[in-house]
C-alpha cells in the first residue's frame, strides 16, 4: 500500500494510529488523580513530540544512513523559525507561506553549509558543522540584530508586532492559523474524570510529521537510500563502483536540513517567536541524543527518541523532592529520607544528569538504541531468531 512493503505498511499504520489517538493514549490517568502529573496529552507537549520527531527523522536521514555526524543541525531549526516569523511579520499569520519559506531558506543554508562541510569526513565534518552552527548562532544573536539590519532581533527574539506590515492580513486573526483555523484552538472532551484535549496545532504538526515519516520510509527503501548506506559502509568501494558519493551526501544533508527547517518553522507556527538559543550547539546535541537514544538508522527510532526525551524533559523534571517523599511515604522516615536523598539528584532539576547517563549507556551497551532494545526483548519472548532490524546500525566513521 502507498508503495510500501508489507512490513513498512504495518509500521506506518501503527504510527498513524498512535499519532491520531495520542490525545487519548497520552492521558491515561484521570485528571484529578495523583498520577495525572504523568499525563502528557496536552497540546503544547504533544506538538513538541511531533515537531522534534520531524527534526530527528530528518537528522536520521543524514546520520543514520550516511554515518556523517552533524553537530550543527540546530542551525537549520533556527533558520526555519526565523523565516517563518518573518512571513508572519510581512504577510499574515497563515502558517502555509511560513512553512514554505522555512523549508526553502533552510534548504539554501544547508546547500551552502553542506557543500563546505562535506569536503571533509569523519571528525572534521563534525567539527566543521559545529563551528558553522556556532557561527550562525553568534550571527543571529548579535550581528544581525543591529539597527541597520535587524533580521533576528537579538536577545529578545524575533516576534510579531502590531506595527508590522502584514500585507496579506486583511481581516485575518492575530494568532497563527491555517486559512482561519486557529492553531491554539482546542476541543476539550471530558469522560468520567478523564479529560482529553484535541488541539488544531497538534493535528497540523501530526499530519506533517506523518508525511515526513512516510517520505523517510520511501527514502530508506529507495535506491538512493541504498547508496547512502553504501556511503557509510564503504565509501572507497563506492568510488570504484562508478558512483560519486559527494552529491549523494549533499542531497542527504540538504534533505535533513529541510526537515530541520520544517520543524523550526512549525515551532514558530505554534508560538510565533524565534530566538537564537534555538540554534545553540546544545540544541544540536539534543537531536543527536534523541536519534541515538531511539535508534539511529532505524525508521521509528528517531520518533521514539524525540518523544522519550521531550516526555522526560517535561514530566520527569517536575518530580521534586516533595513528590519523591509522597512516593516513598510508606517507608520508615529515616529510610525514606535516605532514599529520597539518593534519588533526588536524578529527578527534577537533575533530569539532565539522568539523560546524560542514559545516553552514555545506550552508546556503550545498546548502539541500536531503544528500537534494538525492544527487538531484543521481543526476541526473548518469541524464542526464535528474529531477522536483523532494517539496517541495524552502528554509527560509522
Amino acid at each position, binding site marked *: 500500500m502507498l508503495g510500501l512493503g508489507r512490513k513498512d505498511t504495518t509500521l506506518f499504520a501503527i504510527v498513524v494510529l498512535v499519532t491520531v489517538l495520542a490525545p487519548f493514549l497520552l492521558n491515561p490517568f484521570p485528571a484529578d488523580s495523583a498520577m495525572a502529573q504523568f499525563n502528557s496529552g496536552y497540546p503544547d507537549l504533544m506538538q513538541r513530540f511531533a515537531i522534534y520527531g520531524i527534526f530527528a527523522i530528518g537528522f536520521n536521514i543524514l546520520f543514520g544512513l550516511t554515518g556523517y555526524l552533524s553537530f550543527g543541525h540546530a542551525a537549520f531549526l533556527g533558520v526555519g523559525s526565523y523565516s517563518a516569523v518573518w512571513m508572519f511579520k510581512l504577510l499574515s499569520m497563515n502558517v502555509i507561506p511560513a512553512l514554505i519559506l522555512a523549508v526553502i531558506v533552510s534548504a539554501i543554508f544547508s546547500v551552502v553549509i553542506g557543500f563546505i562541510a562535506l569536503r571533509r569526513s569523519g571528525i572534521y565534518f563534525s*567539527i*566543521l558543522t559545529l563551528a558553522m552552527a556556532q557561527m550562525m548562532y553568534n550571527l543571529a544573536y548579535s550581528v544581525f540584530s543591529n539597527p541597520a539590519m535587524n533580521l533576528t532581533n537579538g536577545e529578545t527574539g524575533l516576534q510579531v508586532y502590531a506595527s508590522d506590515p502584514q500585507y496579506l492580513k486583511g481581516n485575518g486573526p492575530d494568532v497563527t492559523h491555517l486559512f482561519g483555523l486557529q492553531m491554539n484552538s482546542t476541543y476539550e472532551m471530558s469522560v468520567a474524570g478523564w479529560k482529553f484535549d484535541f488541539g488544531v496545532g497538534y493535528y497540523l504538526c501530526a499530519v506533517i510529521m506523518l508525511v515526513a515519516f512516510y517520505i523517510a520510509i520511501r527514502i530508506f527503501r529507495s535506491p538512493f537510500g541504498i547508496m547512502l548506506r553504501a556511503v557509510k559502509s564503504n565509501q572507497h568501494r563506492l568510488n570504484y563502483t562508478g558512483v560519486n558519493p559527494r552529491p549523494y551526501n549533499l542531497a542527504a544533508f540538504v534533505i535533513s536540513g529541510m526537515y530541520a527547517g520544517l520543524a523550526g518553522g512549525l515551532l514558530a507556527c505554534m508560538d510565533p517567536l524565534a530566538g537564537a538559543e534555538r540554534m545553540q550547539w546544545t540544541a544540536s546535541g539534543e537531536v543527536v541524543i534523541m536519534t541515538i537514544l531511539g535508534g539511529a538508522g532505524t525508521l521509528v527510532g528517531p520518533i521514539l527518541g524525540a518523544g522519550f526525551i521531550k516526555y522526560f524533559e517535561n514530566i520527569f523534571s517536575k518530580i521534586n523532592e516533595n513528590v519523591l517523599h509522597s512516593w516513598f511515604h510508606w517507608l520508615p522516615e529515616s529510610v525514606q529520607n535516605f532514599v529520597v536523598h539518593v534519588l533526588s539528584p536524578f529527578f527534577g532539576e*537533575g533530569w*539532565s544528569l539522568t*539523560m*546524560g547517563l542514559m545516553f552514555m549507556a545506550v*552508546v556503550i551497551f545498546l548502539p541500536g538504541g531503544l528500537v534494538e532494545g525492544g527487538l531484543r526483548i521481543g526476541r526473548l519472548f518469541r524464542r526464535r531468531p528474529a531477522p536483523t532490524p532494517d539496517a541495524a546500525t552502528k*554509527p*560509522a566513521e
Partner: protein
Amino acid sequence: MDTLILQFLNGLDKGSAYALIALGLTLIFGTLGVVNFAHGALFMIGGFCAVTLQKILMISSVTLDPTKLNFLGKPTEVKTPYVEVFFGKDVGAFIVDWSVPLAIFFAIPIMIGVGYVMERGLIKHFYKRAHADQILVTFGLAIVLQEVIKYFFGANPIPTPAPEAFRGSVDFGVWLGFAPDLIIYPAWRLVYFIFSLVIIGAVFAFLQFTTFGMVVRAGMADRETVGLLGIDIDRRFTVMFGIAAAVAGLAGVMYSPISSPNYHMGMDFLVLSFVVVVVGGMGSLPGAVAAGFLLGVLQSFASLNQVKALLPGIDQIVIYLIAIIILLIRPRGLMGRKGVMED
C-alpha cells in the same frame, strides 16, 4: 600602536586557555586516537578545584563574642577560618588569600585521578570503535560531569578572587617605554599567560627530554612498531591521559579568577578549542599551541572598534571564519601531518 599592543595582550589570556586545552586534546588524540568531547569538562572541573579549596579553607570555627551584642541583645558570632586557628592570623589569612595558586597542588592529584578513572573506566573500551562513537560517549560524559558539578555547586558562577597582590593592574606601557596609563593590563592575566607558558614548556620538555616522553612520541608516530618492541605503550598512554587531564585542570584552576567558574564553562571553551585543534592541525602539539594563541589574539584584534566599524560583528565569528577557511584551503591545518584522520 598602544591600542594594538593592548589588544594583543588582551588576546593572550584567552589564547593561553585555548592553547592549554588544545594541547591536552591533541595529546589525547595523538596518543590514544580518541576525540575527547569531555575535555572541556576537565577544564571546568579544574576551575571547581579552586572553588572547592577556597571553600575548604574558609571552613570556620564559630565563637561567640560576649563583648559585642547584636541588635537582639545576643552575642555576635565571630567566624574564624580553621587555617587561621592553626597557623595563626597572618599565615592563615595569607593562605586563604592565595587559595587559587595553592589549588594547583590540590588540583594536580585530583585531575590525574579523574583522568585515570576516565581512561581506564570508559575511554579504554572505545579505542577500537568508530570515531563517531568516541565523540558520542565523551559527549555524554561531558553532560554527566557538568550536571554533577551543577548538582553540588549550583548553576551560578562562583567568584574565586586572585590573591590580593595580583588583583590590581600593571602599567605595561611604562615597561615598554610608553607614557604611563596607556597600556594598563590586569596583573592576574599576565600571571596566567606566564603560567601557561611554563606549563606548555614543561609538557614539551617532558616529551622531549625524558625517556618516557621519547617513547610516547615514538608511539604517537607509529604505535604498532613501538608495541612490537615489547614496550607497554598503552600504560604510558594512560599516563599521558592523566597528564592531559591535569593540564586542562590547571588551566581551569588559574582561569577561575578571570572568569568565575560555572558548570557550563567547559562546553563553551571546548567548541573553540576544537576549532583551535583543527586549525593547528590534528595531532600536532606545536600547531595546537600556536593556533591557540593566534586565534585568541585575532579574536581580540577583531573586537577593536575600528575593525568592528568596518565589519560589524566580526569579533563574534572571526574564529569560526578562520577555521572554515583554513580547513578548506589547507585541510591538514597549519602544522598537521599528512595522513592523520584523512579518510
